[in-house]
């Protein structure tokens, strides 16, 4: 499990690598929250492109960071989620939250329409 944090112009980007489960989520949460709070970031980007496994602990991590950014008056954005993570995210209903980049949002909208 590895996490790379980059702070730029009020945006904190966390690149997550490895397996995200209950065991690894606690450490990730502490590192992300410490950096977000100390850097007073306005926007947090969680990049899942390096995640090879995620169970519902990852959903808890996303929900918790969404709440944190709300209390800080900022926003959360998710990027790099593959099909398996997408399935988990949809199951949790997180696809309805405003946490997706503009281009992915449109793709998601079209996708929903196709499936209905």
């Amino acid at each position: 499990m590895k996490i790379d944090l980059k702070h730029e112009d009020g945006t904190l980007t966390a690149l997550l690598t490895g397996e995200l489960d209950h065991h690894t989520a606690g450490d990730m949460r502490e590192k992300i929250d410490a950096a977000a709070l100390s850097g007073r970031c306005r926007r947090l980007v969680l990049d899942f492109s390096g995640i090879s496994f995620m169970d519902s602990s990852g959903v808890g991590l996303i929900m918790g960071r969404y709440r944190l950014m709300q209390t800080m008056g900022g926003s959360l954005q998710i990027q790099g989620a593959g099909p398996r993570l997408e399935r988990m995210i949809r199951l949790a209903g997180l696809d309805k939250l405003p946490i997706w980049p503009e281009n992915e949002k449109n793709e998601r909208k079209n996708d929903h329409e196709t499936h209905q």
Partner: protein
Amino acid sequence: MKPINELRMTFPSRSANEAFARAAVAAFAAQLDPAVDELADLRTAVSEAVTNAIVHAYPDELGPVTLTVQLYENGRITLRVRDKGRGIENVEKAMEPLFTTGGEERSGLGFSVMQSFTDRVRVRSTPGKGTTVTMDKYIALRAKARP
């Protein structure tokens, strides 16, 4: 129907064993030559069940978690996760999506994920005695996929 092969192992409820349980199930189930997605479903389902045992069965102590994997000739894989922890008062309630007693960093989706990623989930629990979660997953059989 008797299983054609069976794995049984017991480990303490340390969270480091979540990854170990996933790896063990994947390695053992590989004998039936599952597709990549089927294997990923099994890994996810067992991860949820083992995490539930670690987080909810033994909240303040370590206890034994027994994982059984049974492989059947018709492509059925049965995963059983048993603990001797505090048990669940109301199984029906515990299985409702988003219900959790695990604090705000837990999503409450564990059973929903198990139901979505396998074909059948059964939960038996006795308060003070423990919980057994049994999941069946049918995988598509391919030629030469016999242990």
